[in-house]
């Protein structure tokens, strides 16, 4: 408990409170009147309203589209499943600038829909909603599907033997067991879409603005710290309210679950209904996720004189990019992996410890801490980044120009994922198993190794996967601190896109394709580790 508390106090609470204080204090006196002033502005109200309803709509749409996917990935066996599960996570790491490009190609003028039916969705709210589904599909599939695949299907079968209909059995047995994971996933999707930044800016155009976009504008562009501080507080309050609701639903539903090896629960689909479901899910994934990704790959190969690997070759030489980079852009891969690895390690330590502490202790204080851990998802990167600048500026913690600030900032966003994926599983471990082991003479350590570890290993890997993906794709914090000779992949992509010229654009697409591959391969490797050791089960 001490480690995560200290981590959050130093790297989150202190910087954020300091920057908010800078905005709300005048000569050492808090000016709470500013809150009312800002909130009564009609433009700010418009922003608040749009932020709220687009997040609700995005979350509903994502759940609607992704829950069948979670079921299919959890319960069915089909060729290429592992690969596909890695691929649907790829959008998660892609820079929004790049995704915006792909979506415009799909939804914009002369795009896919335009060609087929003459429908254009760019600069409408539909483009924003669909892009949100694209980004967050994996959140639902991985958090809900991860638990679903470990639920024992025999419980549902038993209920049916006892006379319950198919739906009643599902509603009474599976749904309650799944509810915390669904709530967790919905909450994460809501937080991501509530704080949406790049998607709204690029696909919605300047006519749409979320709280997060407004905070960035007020802080980074206008240096209007009082307004930014008020908006940050509003975002805080909103996130806090969501978390309270979430905590309440989870507490009512929580029970110890019988978890089994996912390999035993998945089987080949049977019957027309199941095949239709599988086909439907695969088609959705194809159109919504694979198609935009394929467009990027196609553009990375589209040379002026035909298709080829020319842009990839250019990535390898610093000379072709003398104006844009000090090193060959390809080296960004190694930088990215290194940062992401450190960030994942930090997130696992902090998040793992926090999750463990939260499972073992109860009480209001602990629940408050649970909420605190989620706050980084609801606080804008620019607030944290500017907070770092004014707080971590004295030895021994003058980290403002240190490379460690990058993984630290990335870990801050990774921790909530670790906590949220670990918690349902940790809480579901039946305490009696542990007691039984103890009665049989196992030391606490042995009991943990034999009972808890095998059950949480999968969750741990899912969590690590998320933390890694988040870190790999993180841009907001990284761009402030990454050094020119040390760019990460998203930073390098952004720099290439910031230049005119065929070669720069092509290389940006090629580098984005590489970012996709790196992410997919890393996630596949993570899943492999699990398969190799499943014999211990």
């Amino acid at each position, binding site marked *: 408990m001490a480690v995560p508390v200290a981590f959050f106090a130093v790297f989150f609470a202190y910087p954020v409170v300091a920057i908010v204080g*800078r905005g709300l204090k005048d000569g050492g006196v808090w000016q709470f009147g500013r809150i009312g002033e800002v909130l009564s502005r009609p433009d700010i109200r418009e922003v608040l309203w749009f932020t709220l309803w687009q997040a609700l709509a995005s979350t509903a749409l994502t759940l609607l589209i992704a829950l069948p996917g979670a079921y299919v990935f959890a319960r069915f066996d089909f060729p290429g499943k592992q690969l596909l599960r890695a691929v649907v996570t790829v959008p998660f790491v892609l820079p929004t600038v790049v995704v*915006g*490009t792909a979506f*415009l190609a799909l939804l914009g*003028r*002369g795009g896919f829909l335009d060609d087929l039916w003459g429908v254009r969705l760019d600069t409408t709210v539909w483009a924003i909603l669909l892009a949100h589904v694209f980004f967050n599909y994996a959140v639902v599939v991985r958090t809900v599907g991860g638990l679903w695949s470990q639920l024992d299907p025999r419980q549902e079968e038993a209920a049916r033997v006892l006379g319950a209909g198919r739906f009643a059995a599902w509603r009474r047995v599976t749904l309650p067991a799944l509810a915390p994971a669904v709530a967790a996933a919905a909450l994460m999707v809501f937080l991501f879409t509530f704080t949406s930044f790049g998607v709204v*800016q*690029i696909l919605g*155009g*300047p006519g749409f603005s979320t709280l997060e976009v407004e905070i960035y*504008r007020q*802080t*980074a*562009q*206008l*240096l209007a710290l009082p307004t930014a501080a008020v908006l940050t507080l509003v975002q805080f309050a909103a996130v806090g309210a969501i978390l309270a609701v979430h905590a309440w639903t989870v507490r009512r539903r929580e029970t110890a679950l019988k978890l089994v090896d996912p390999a035993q629960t998945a089987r080949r689909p049977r019957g027309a209904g199941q095949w239709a479901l599988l086909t439907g899910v695969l088609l959705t994934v194809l159109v919504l996720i694979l198609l935009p990704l394929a467009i990027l790959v196609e553009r990375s190969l589209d040379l*002026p004189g035909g298709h080829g690997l020319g842009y990839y070759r250019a990535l390898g030489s610093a000379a072709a990019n*003398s*104006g844009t980079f*000090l090193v060959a852009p390809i080296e960004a891969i*190694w*930088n990215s992996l*290194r940062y992401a*690895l*450190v960030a994942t*390690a*930090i997130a*696992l*330590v902090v998040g*793992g*410890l926090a999750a*463990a502490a939260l499972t*073992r202790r109860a009480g209001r204080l602990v629940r408050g801490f649970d909420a605190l851990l989620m706050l980084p998802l609801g606080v804008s990167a620019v607030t944290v980044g*500017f907070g770092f*600048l*004014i707080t971590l500026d004295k030895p021994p913690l003058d980290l*403002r*120009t240190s*490379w460690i600030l990058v*993984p630290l900032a990335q870990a801050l966003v990774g921790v909530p994922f670790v906590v949220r994926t670990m918690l349902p599983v940790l809480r579901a471990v039946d305490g009696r198993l542990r007691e039984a082991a103890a009665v049989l003479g196992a030391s*606490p*350590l042995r009991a*943990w*190794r034999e009972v808890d570890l095998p059950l949480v290993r999968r969750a741990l890997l899912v969590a690590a996967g998320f933390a890694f993906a988040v870190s790999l794709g993180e841009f907001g914090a990284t*761009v*402030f601190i990454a*050094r*020119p*000779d040390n760019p990460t992949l998203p930073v390098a992509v*952004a*720099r290439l*896109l*910031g230049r*005119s*010229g*065929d*070669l*720069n*654009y*092509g290389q940006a697409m090629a580098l984005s394709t590489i970012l996709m591959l790196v992410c997919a391969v890393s996630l596949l490797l993570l899943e492999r580790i699990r398969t190799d050791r499943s014999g211990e089960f």
Partner: protein
Amino acid sequence: MSTTKKLAVTAVAAAIGATALAGCGSSDDSGSGSGGTKGSGSKTVTLVSHDSFNASKGVLKEFTRETGYTVKVLKSGDAGAALNQEILTKGSPRGDVFFGVDNTLLSRALDNGLFTPYAAKGLGQVASDVQLDAAKHRVTPVDTGDICVNYDKKYFADKKLAPPKSFDDLAKPAYKNLLVTENAATSSPGLGFLLGSIATYGQDGYQDYWKKLKDNGVKVVDGWEQAYNEAFSGSAGGKKAKADRPLVVSYASSPPVEVLYADPQPKTAPTGVATATCFRQIEFAGLLDGAKNEAGGKALLDFLISKKFQEDMPLNMFVSPVTKGAKVPELFTRFGTTADKPATVAPDTIAKNREQWVQSWSSLVVK
């Protein structure tokens, strides 16, 4: 509690391992990246800048050879964000020199007392019309760049239509639905274009002008990347995206860049510049108040306006030198254009009115 402890031990071990790994890597990089041969700690001078800062490795090595100082560059977001971070850390800066405050933001920097005055050596060679702080020398002008409307040559040739030349032209029916510009609230070319229109039509007339532009179908997107790569039909990205706007607010140096980063290089640039729509941006550098390496910072400021750096700049940042006699590369003279009479607005006037101009522009055009 064993779960907690065990987790802690494994995870801490993992973190230390990974940290050590990354630590090694990054110290290697800083060694090679700084490019210095005698790069001991005290001999480092830190330059804080925005993302667009670029200098060739060779020219930074040259500085090290001449002065013994190794340059470390810290980039921190776009120009506005970078400056605001400096204002927040005033008195305890992250570096010694800040580069990249332009005439649209200059007053904000000066009013906040960000810089220690220093008259750089060689200032006599710098054109006087860009020395906006000549009396106090708090900042040193380093480069200029023009924000202008670019056009897609092929589109206008195919339509047998003359490309627009001036602000007035853009509002004519012949150019309806052709122009894409950036959000003046979030993008510096967007702001530059707005300021250009204010310089041309005055504080009383610019709103009428924008009403006309809006009626003429001007499209506004959030940033330069989207405008140029996704909406502008003349750029490499725009061609692939089947973009439909042959006019975009960009830079006078964009056409040469299109040539430089094409393979094979074409004989003429695919895009051109509407020369009477330009707004001149001047970028400055200054010695940060509280700099740890003041001597190094002064040497760096001298270097920034030296011929060597000034001649290195155009092909790295696509801006024009301010030092007299600095050679402009042939690529610029052949494919680029400089505006004869670029629009300008005094930094004080901008500082006083920026907020209000942008606000009324937003409610007029965006909403």
